[in-house]
């Protein structure tokens, strides 16, 4: 990775650093036009995000294939989290944020009137950078989503009328915790407060909680940034397994991690532009852009 590959475009007379300029626009669109096998799950086109006057994401276009892991890397402050929040419209919750452009989920535009945000977020789940379990029992954390969606009913009335889904809930809790590689550690204390778990366990609980609502896409914002190596390894393995059924988009600041777990990688650079997007092997071994090459080989960050 650290070997400096001779890039055919490196010698072009156009300075790549300029953010405007016709030739660079053209080049970028070539780099980000990435062909993959399989169906497109999320199609992002010309996405701009502003925080007040701050232009945080500049005309980003990329297609994310289903049942794969897509890693987003780049220096901090380059808009990775912002991009991720666009995919389930969590940016709507930030007052100053304004989003321009289009994101299609299974071909349906999500930035249009009449989109049911609740339904969208059921399908596009999210795990945050810092673990944020509810101050409830482990069991209640997991079954929170399905209960609220009405998929599981364990209310008093349901119990009275004998249609309580307690067994289904038990199965769901166990399945989700197993998926998140947490079951062994907490199976004997499901009724304890989730806030009593360690940071790594809490993060895996949050993953299990997101999986319990059975989303189609899972967005993860640096899920391992606060974890020790063992917990990180567990989560990486988990992400790898998840890609069989789910579409995973993961932000990470750790390039080795991105190289290990992802199928395709998108590199954002400071200023909020998508500099390169392609097959992970190709991005890391033969980056098309000099700036990406510099970033990956550690010359700037």
């Amino acid at each position, binding site marked *: 990775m650290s070997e400096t590959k001779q890039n055919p475009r490196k010698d072009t007379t156009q300075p790549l650093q300029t953010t405007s300029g016709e030739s660079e626009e053209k080049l970028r669109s070539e780099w980000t036009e990435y062909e993959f096998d399989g169906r497109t799950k999320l199609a992002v086109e010309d996405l701009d995000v502003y925080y007040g006057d701050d232009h945080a994401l500049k005309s980003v276009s990329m297609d994310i294939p289903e049942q794969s892991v897509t890693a987003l890397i780049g220096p901090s402050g380059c808009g990775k989290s912002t991009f991720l929040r666009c995919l389930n419209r969590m940016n709507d919750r930030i007052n100053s944020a304004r989003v321009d452009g289009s994101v299609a989920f299974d071909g349906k535009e999500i930035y249009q009137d009449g989109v049911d945000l*609740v339904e969208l977020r059921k399908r596009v789940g999210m795990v945050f950078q810092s673990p*944020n*379990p509810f*101050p409830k029992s482990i069991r209640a954390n997991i079954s*929170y989503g399905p209960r609220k969606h009405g998929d599981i009913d364990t209310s008093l009335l349901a119990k009275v009328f004998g249609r309580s889904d307690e067994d289904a809930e038990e199965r769901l809790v166990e399945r989700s915790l197993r998926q998140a590689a947490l079951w062994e550690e907490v199976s004997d204390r499901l*009724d304890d407060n989730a806030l009593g778990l360690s940071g790594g366990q809490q993060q895996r609980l*949050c993953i299990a909680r*997101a999986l319990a609502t059975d989303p189609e896409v899972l967005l993860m914002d640096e899920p391992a940034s606060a974890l020790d190596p063992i917990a990180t390894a567990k989560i990486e393995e988990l992400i790898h397994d998840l890609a069989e059924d789910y579409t995973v988009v993961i932000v990470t600041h750790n390039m080795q991690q991105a190289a290990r777990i992802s199928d395709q990688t998108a590199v954002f650079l400071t200023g909020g532009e998508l500099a390169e997007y392609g097959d992970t092997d190709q991005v890391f071994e033969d980056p098309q852009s000099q700036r990406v090459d510099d970033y990956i080989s550690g010359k700037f960050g």
Partner: protein
Amino acid sequence: MAGATRTRLVREDTSGADAVAALAVGVASVLFGLGLAAMFEVVGLTGTLAGVPTLPLLGGLLLVQGVAVVVFGVGSRFGAVETNPRPDAGIVAAVAFTLIWLVVGGLVASQVLGLGLAGWLLGAILTGAAGFAATVLPREDVGSTLPAGVVTALVGLVFLSGYIAPTSVWDLGWEQKASLTAEFMVPVVTVFCALLTGWAAAKAYGGFGARGRRVGAYLLVYLNAAAIVGVLFALVAFTVFKGVPGLFRGLTFGPGVGPESTVALFGASVTFSWPVYLPFAMNGVGLLNDLNGVLPAIVGTFWLVVGAVLFAVPLGVGAAIFLTEYAERGRFTQVVEVATNGLWSTPSIVFGLFGFAFLIPRFGNGKSLLAGMLTLGFMLLPLVVITSREAMLSVPDEYRDASAALGVTKWQTIRSVVLPAALPGVVTGTILGVGRIAGETAPILLTMAGGVFVPGSQTADVIGGFQFTAAPPFVSNPELLQATSALPYQLYALITAGVGASGNVGNPDQFRWATALILLLVVLSFYAVGIVTRYYFRRKLDYE
């Protein structure tokens, strides 16, 4: 000085000097406690303590204490004790000691020497300057012990010498006939000197310097905390001691000794007699009673609080939800915030007047329990809004984000995440409010209270009072529309208005204190209910 100062890392040996300083700290604490006890007349100045007359005992202790502190400071200055003093005692100590010595000089010049205004001023300024110099000029060890020790020793000498008697009174010669009694001044001065020398001794014990200052600050903080707890305890203990005789007068146990109660449910009724008879809490006031009691007022206060809470909590929490979760932060929420804060600070008599003018004409045109409940409910409302809002704002936004990201609606999030996390705060706020409204007299006077001393037959039976009718509104409760009494109102009437002192309550003083005690118990039991509720909500980890 180039190098940083180094003190011993481990203080393994307790030297004799340390022991002396520790003893001085101990004596100061004892003096502090004695002073407080004397102030609240737990210890009489005229009496004796452990066989010694109190006043000379205090004087002797103060003298010993003052001398010990000075000796320690001077000894440290001449190297007899190992300490790490700073070059001076600091500006705060300097100002404090200057003021103290100003007062000492002024007092001696005017009271002992009998000098006029000029002499009084001169004396005060001279001694003040001396105090200032003694604090600032020498090293910290002398500067913080000498001025404190000498004042204390002087006070001790005055107490010892018999110059003031326990019964002395100083007429201040003001128009208002204000005077100071030894009974009040001696404890105050004792407490003050105890604090002063206690602080100096604690500094000495810490070897002055940074550590000494820390130990000195600890001592002041701890004594302060102890004093506050002590005063609160004394207040409650005082009420209990005074109230218990009246409360338990005529208490008897045994089958059938108590009054008869009838419990009616769906037409069937059961009548039984209580196996205990506590006249004060089970009787009203009546001519034929063996012993009079305050049952109607207890029940009145109880229903009053319950009604106000039932009215204010749902409304207040609802308003808080709207303000924190739905309304845009801006001019509107600011105005509402200012308005609620203002309402909570509004004097209760204003609420009372509102109830009198607005509610009473609408509820049967007479004072009634319902009007009182609503008036107090209006009083409680702003506090519930303020504390609930505070509690909801302190629920982290991460919970709301996490819930939204799971595809859960806002209202479900509020119900299942925000409210449960905020409930302990809501309960705390409500408890505070209940303490206030349970003790209100003015609004009750205007909206609810009928006769001052009501017979037991007028006890409000709110539950039994519900009647179902065929015509709208289908349910009525005449009990809610009756005037009744409440504990604080009854207390007020007995003390201020002198009503009832004419013998129909037996011993008015006992009756008064017992009423106060009952009021305290009623408020405390609401408090206990609140604490249990809060504990329950903290422990509950699973909400629908």
